[in-house]
């Protein structure tokens, strides 16, 4: 029965998949119908049946590992000796990690602002035009693509060929430079600009999300406000600045914070495009290399905890804004 653990052929894999789903359905079915058969089941039994499996999963997979990682972050690389805050001190003072932190800050500041700005402008421009839904789909599509796929798409755009003899550029961006009479660039190698070219990929992905949410918010602006503003002579940029933006402020904040959180955890883009070389690494990627490549569990855990701590204020702010928005509504 080894194939239940390590299936090899396609048939075995699909069989295993179906078995897994069925097994799950049967277990859940037994629990539910068992509960149903008991007349006047006490509340605690019902709660256990409905909530028990979830709590078990969450406690095993989120709470317990989280606590263990926090503990590991105070131990040395092998996890044998307590070292206090050494890992954190190292993470904040080492040259190597300073670059990582600087890059992370760049990502978390630039991506949300740029993606939200582009998404907002685009949403306003196409609002209630004939091609609206088509235009939206175009911008939105990158959301469906994996970060790995997006990285490959952009790596090809940045592709560099040395400028000698009659070698043709095959990357679009370098070809544009050549057409403009400029020398081609190694976009992913030249520091410190390479980080910006990685950031562009994330902006490209997240703008669609910003556009969708903001577009819905724009449509929700009451008609009389828009009309009144128009009667008062507001048009174009004035309308955008004084009516659109203030009216959708809560949505803007939600979008910015959500993108910031997603950006903080970005790992795939750095790994696929540069492998963290040429000073492009970020905290989420450094966590991976320290934990699974350098076998330095202490630093890896400390970086994960730093990630966790950095997310908290963004989430708290986000939730508070959501609450406020709901109250006003």
């Amino acid at each position, binding site marked *: 029965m080894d194939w239940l653990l390590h299936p090899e052929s396609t048939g075995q894999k699909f069989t295993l998949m179906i078995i897994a789903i069925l097994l799950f359905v049967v277990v859940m079915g037994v629990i539910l119908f068992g509960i149903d058969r008991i007349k006047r089941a006490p509340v605690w039994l019902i709660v256990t049946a409905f909530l028990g499996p979830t709590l078990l999963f969450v406690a095993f*997979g989120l709470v317990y590992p*989280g606590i263990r990682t926090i503990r590991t972050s105070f131990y040395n690389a092998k996890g044998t000796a307590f070292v206090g805050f050494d890992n954190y001190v190292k993470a904040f003072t080492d040259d190597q990690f300073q670059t990582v932190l600087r890059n992370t800050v760049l990502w978390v500041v630039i991506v949300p602002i740029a993606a939200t700005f582009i998404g907002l402008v685009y949403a306003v421009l196409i609002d*209630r035009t004939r091609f609206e839904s088509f235009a939206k789909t175009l911008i939105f599509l990158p959301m469906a693509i994996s970060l790995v796929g997006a990285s490959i798409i952009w790596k090809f755009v940045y592709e560099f060929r040395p400028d000698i003899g009659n070698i043709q550029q095959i990357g*679009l961006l370098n070809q544009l430079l050549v057409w403009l009479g400029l020398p081609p660039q190694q976009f992913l190698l030249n520091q410190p600009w390479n980080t910006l070219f990685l950031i562009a990929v994330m902006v490209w992905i997240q703008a669609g999300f910003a556009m969708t949410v903001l577009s819905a918010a724009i449509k929700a602006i009451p008609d009389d406000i828009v009309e*009144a503003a128009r009667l008062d002579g507001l048009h174009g940029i004035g309308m955008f600045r004084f009516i659109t933006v203030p009216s959708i402020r809560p949505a803007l904040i939600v979008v910015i914070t959500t993108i910031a959180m997603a950006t903080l955890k970005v790992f795939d883009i750095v790994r696929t495009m540069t492998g963290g070389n040429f000073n492009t690494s970020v905290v989420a990627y450094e966590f991976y290399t320290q934990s699974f490549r350098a076998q330095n569990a202490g630093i890896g855990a400390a970086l994960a905890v730093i990630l966790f701590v950095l997310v908290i204020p963004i989430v708290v702010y986000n939730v508070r804004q959501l609450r406020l928005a709901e109250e006003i509504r």
Partner: protein
Amino acid sequence: MTVIPPTSLIDEDEGPVRAAPRKLSRTEQRALAAKGRLSSPWASGLAIIIAILWTVPTFGLFVTSFRPRSEIRTSGWWTLPFNWEVTLDNYQQALFGSSTSLSTYFVNSIVITLPAVVIPISLALLAAYAFAWVDFKGRGILFVAIFALQVVPIQITLIPLLSQYVQWGLAGSFWVVWLSHSIFALPLAIYLLHNFMKEIPASLVEAARVDGAGHVKIFFQVLLPLLTPAIASFAIFQFLWVWNDLLVALVFVGGTPDVAPLTVRVAELSGTRGTAWQLLSAGAFIALAVPLVVFLALQRFFVRGLLAGSVKG
């Protein structure tokens, strides 16, 4: 929600004037105004530039995936019209060539994704039901706790989970991938489905209860049919998330050809054969095809889910 600058406060006297006889409906007016805005050449120009920037990179790689290897290496994809040579060899080679064999990984991706969508949704539905419609002590605190767990970045859980799986001898199997994806999806799934469930009028549930329906019956016969759109929108999210995931698969199964999904293999190719664009372009589109189709077909539900505040990072 709305902050109105003083300039927009309507003068009372203007009311009747505005309500003069012939009037376009408000939506018509706004459509007209929007048209006026877009007919400004700057605005439409800007919109078109953004749209082009957002589509050309993908289009370029797509075109490349159909060009023969020798052509890809010597000229840009934009020269295709002057130099018409297309082939399906790249896909043939990427899918079945012995050095890439993406077809195997394609199967792995499907096998990973389906249970990783079904399991968390079912669990979350039950949990959301308990939170929404069963009155028990500590319900509020427990719900907030689950809600708060959304904050936990999965990175923080990976190492302890991995060592646990290794201890059980399960590391590198489908089972741990399913389990991990399910766990990571639960907090958000419960939160979202709970919100949708709360929107169902309590009188429906009460009526069923008076008729003598138990929890199981209420759950399946009253609530589930009403929740289908909500379930669909979360299912799409989870599907895209699992199919596109790299980190979880990389940590728990590494590069094992029998389990690793497409993303892991394609990312690996990008590292080891970074200049083999005939493989990379075809490989990328093999990985993109399924999520793109799902996304385009079910965009409506996806947008609905997005607007319900469901975004996972």
